[in-house]
């Protein structure tokens, strides 16, 4: 047996880097979360306030609605991206002319910076100067106003997210699909299994860890989206697209309320963690149960 020391050695750089840049800042934020602190306000001192920030948070209507909106946004965006990304990855598994070319085009949205994506979508959708409302009006007679209609603004943030991030899902699932052994598929075809059976009984169980990893990454990124939505809607109309990342942003930057902002961040981090942990344990546990059954 090889010694575990080598294993720890291979893992060590990762642990050290994440401890320095992950744990240290977190401890600091946790400390600030228990203080009243507005470094640019009338009283710049840090005052311990015995968990008042957390008490305030429970009754903060703006925070609670932003959590609800964020969950709704993350659900619609991530679910669509996973389904679409999987189908597109399957399409890339086929042989067809110009495959490399189309794959490059498909991944282009990834290399546009989020602030730019937000800006372009804003210019495309702003009433009276944007191309999309203009075409909708002249071709179909539909009025679209992102500045007034909350549902339109919400839908656009979701569509923008799908446009921007589906290629990531396609790529990670494609990497998983090309790495699969071919034999089970050939065997299943010989046995006369149909497409749906092959997907449900062979492909899905085999790429499940990759799907899970992708869902996690997309989910936590969607939960902390700031730049794109900020540029597209600024959180409006009203508070319809004021997702929790934007909410924290507004607390920290215009208001410089660091104490409360830190408390909100700690709670958001905690909620994300619990959600992912439940998902992780739930899915992994279910898989193990199946295996023993």
């Amino acid at each position, binding site marked *: 047996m090889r010694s575990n020391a080598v294993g720890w050695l291979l*893992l060590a750089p990762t642990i050290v*880097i994440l401890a320095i840049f992950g744990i240290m*800042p977190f401890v600091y934020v946790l400390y600030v979360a228990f203080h009243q602190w507005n470094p640019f306000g009338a009283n710049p001192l840090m005052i311990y306030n015995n968990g008042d920030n957390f008490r305030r948070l429970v009754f903060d209507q703006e925070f609670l609605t932003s959590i609800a909106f964020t969950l709704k946004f993350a659900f619609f965006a991530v679910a669509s991206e996973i389904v679409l990304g999987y189908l597109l990855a399957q399409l890339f598994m086929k042989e067809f002319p110009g495959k490399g070319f189309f794959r490059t085009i*498909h991944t282009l949205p990834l290399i546009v910076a989020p602030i730019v994506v937000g*800006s372009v979508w804003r210019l495309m959708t702003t009433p009276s100067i944007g191309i999309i409302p203009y075409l909708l009006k002249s071709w179909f007679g539909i009025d679209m106003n992102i500045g007034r209609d909350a549902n339109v603004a919400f839908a656009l943030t979701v569509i923008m997210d799908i446009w921007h991030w589906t290629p*990531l899902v396609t790529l990670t699932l*494609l990497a998983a699909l090309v*790495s699969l052994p071919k034999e089970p598929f050939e065997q299943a075809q010989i046995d006369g299994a149909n497409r749906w059976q092959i997907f449900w009984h062979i492909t899905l169980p085999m790429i499940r860890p990759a799907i899970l990893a992708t869902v996690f990454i997309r989910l936590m990124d969607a939960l902390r989206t700031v730049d794109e939505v900020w540029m597209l809607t600024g959180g409006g109309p009203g508070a319809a697209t004021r997702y929790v990342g934007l909410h924290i942003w507004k607390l920290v930057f215009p208001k410089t309320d660091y104490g409360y*902002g830190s408390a909100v961040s700690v709670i958001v981090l905690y909620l994300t963690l619990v959600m992912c942990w439940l998902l992780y344990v739930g899915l992994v546990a279910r898989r193990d149960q199946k295996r023993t059954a």
Partner: protein
Amino acid sequence: MPNERPWLTVLLWVVLSIATLFPIYWLFVISVKPAVELFSTPSLFLDTIYWKNYVKVIGDDTLRRYMMNSIIISSGNAVLVTVLAFMACYALSRYDLAGKENIFFWTITNRMAPAAVFLLPFFLLFTQVFAIGDWKLYDTRIGMILLYCTFNLPFAIWTLRPTIDGIPKELDEAATVDGATTWQVITEVIFPLARPGLAVTLILTWVFAWNEFLLAATLTSFNARTITTGLSEYVTTTGTEWGTMASISIITLIPALIIFSVVQRHIVAGLTFGAVKE
């Protein structure tokens, strides 16, 4: 996989590509219009092309420096992260380490933090903790390369783990029996088989580093400032210089495209396992 109707697939991709390209096409349209025309009635096609934005951007030394910084930081970070994640995933997959699943889950928690409040501790870390005499980690390329590990390393570990786990352990054991060292197993057995996963990890970590905005805006000022942050200098409270911003964005697509097309070639099936296994 065989394809009975390749032209149907191509047709489908043409339609999808139009949808994908439209916002990028629109970015280009914005980049070749004078500012006043942006706020008139839109039209789908261009009648005149206004190149001044590009002339201005290409002649700008500062932007060229930002671009160089971005290339160095993203490439440095992507390579570092992919190598570290590869090592870490091999360790997590092949060794029986105490609490390894908890460590695995802990890595991903580093990506969950909402960035806004974490800017302050990072700033303190970069200006006070990692400061020796006159030297500070603040505004250095190496600082950004290391910092981007916080969100890229968890990502890389989570995307690579299924790939490494999927490579049968029998292969390592067979190689070890034949007298291969751990180093040889990793580089000669695992590496070729993990190539599609590694390529995707490299591309995506590169993308995340390239696009990162908040941290770079806070932790760099000039020497290590990235092009994405440089872009935001054109989005100001007094109004946005849409044309300049759009033309820089279009130019930044070029290095990214080159890297993409080079690395994407590796997203193909390596050896089939069955062939090696028996």
